[in-house]
């Protein structure tokens, strides 16, 4: 068993150092880059901390396409079906899959982005919540 502090606690300390000590000590462009670097670590923290969502994605995908070859191969098959017109948003299960997977991605990449909030509202409404 690894000792404390946890990976998350270490990353929190690095973010605080980048936004404080480093940013204050650096010239303008490097200060901007230090803040970008802090944002990058925040993204990694969210991804490490997220519940594994790929098993849900694989389950929803397997209802639509053959699941041989894993997630990437299944996603490619789904895209081919959309490209050919075989699948579209009226295909049962497709819109649910896309809402859930897109939300899982943006919640890690950019949870504050304006469209993320609207997508969250849409997902809740589809799950039958107020």
């Amino acid at each position, binding site marked *: 068993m690894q000792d404390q502090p946890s990976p998350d606690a270490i990353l929190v300390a690095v973010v605080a150092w980048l936004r404080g000590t480093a940013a204050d000590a650096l010239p303008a462009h490097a200060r901007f880059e230090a803040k970008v670097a802090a*944002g990058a670590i925040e993204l990694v923290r969210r991804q490490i901390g997220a519940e594994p969502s790929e098993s849900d994605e694989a389950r929803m995908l397997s209802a639509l396409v053959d699941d041989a070859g894993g997630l*990437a191969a299944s996603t490619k098959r789904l895209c081919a079906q959309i*490209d050919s017109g075989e699948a579209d*948003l009226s295909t049962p299960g497709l819109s649910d899959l896309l809402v859930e997977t*897109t939300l899982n991605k943006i919640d890690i990449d950019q949870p504050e982005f304006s469209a993320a909030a609207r997508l969250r509202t849409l997902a809740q409404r589809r799950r039958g919540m107020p």
Partner: protein
Amino acid sequence: MIIAAQDILHPQTALQNVLAGLVCTLDPATQGIKGLRRLSGGASQETWSFQMDGGQGHHLILRREPAAARSGGSGIGMAAEAQVIKRVIAAGVPAPRIEHELTPDDGIGAGFVMARIDGEALPHRILRDEAYAPARAKFAHQAGEILARIHQTDPTGLPIPAQSPREVLDDLADRHGAFGAARPVFSLALRWLAENAPEPRTPKLVHGDFRMGNLMLGPEGIRGVLDWELAHIGDPLADMGWLCMESWRFGNAEPVGGLGRREDLFAGYEAAGGDPVDPATVRWWEILSALRWGVIIEEMAAWVREGTDTSVERHVIARRASETEAILLLHLMEGVA
């Protein structure tokens, strides 16, 4: 492009020496340059700021092409960009005056030196600082007026490509296929765009990257339109769709650059002599613009993969394709935002 040994050892010193010689030909009373610094931003071109030391003391900007080629879509080239800028200035568009076009004899690559327009281009300051409140109030209308002037500029003889809406869409599909990952949302968006493509209208000069970030503002309003490297001949409403795309609203709700209503943009355009605007076509271009930004992000992710740009900033931008998937999915399922 051949890079001399001193450029690798002391690139900034070499640049400093060349620019110092160059400003003396622009203004013999100068003693060289001062304050040379690389500006942030500009993923595809280098931008440097400097000032004449003595003489008229003008603040100047150098734009030049990077040394290394990268994957993905590219601009029209520096010489063509300079020609476009000269043409639009003559047509009354506010843009930075070209002071000198680099020649092979200058020895610092392809590019040009232009006058610096004072003001603010950083979206977050323009959108939030109290000083810019007057500029914000009239932004949408004024952007419409300037776009009308750009689109009325005679593009005859300019060495820039022409693209119909269908060709723009095909180009995006090709670039997504070449550099991107399989994304069901992009596949759905490509089909929707193909099924709803507008009829070709009279082709005009299109800026190609007209958005918050490429507009220099003062408290009183827009002072200059920057970054003409994606200028082309095509559907003029493409510029309006790109300006309204959600990523360029920087968290604000208003569609036109985060600052104004589409109705004001269209009114400014038509008041300045622009052709009547078809809102449905602007909307089509806005959806295409989200996909376009997504494909550009995929290309930037390829730079990271290939090692042509390993900066932290590029790694973070490479994770922004999901923002365009969110925009596109909401559009496909719910319509107008």
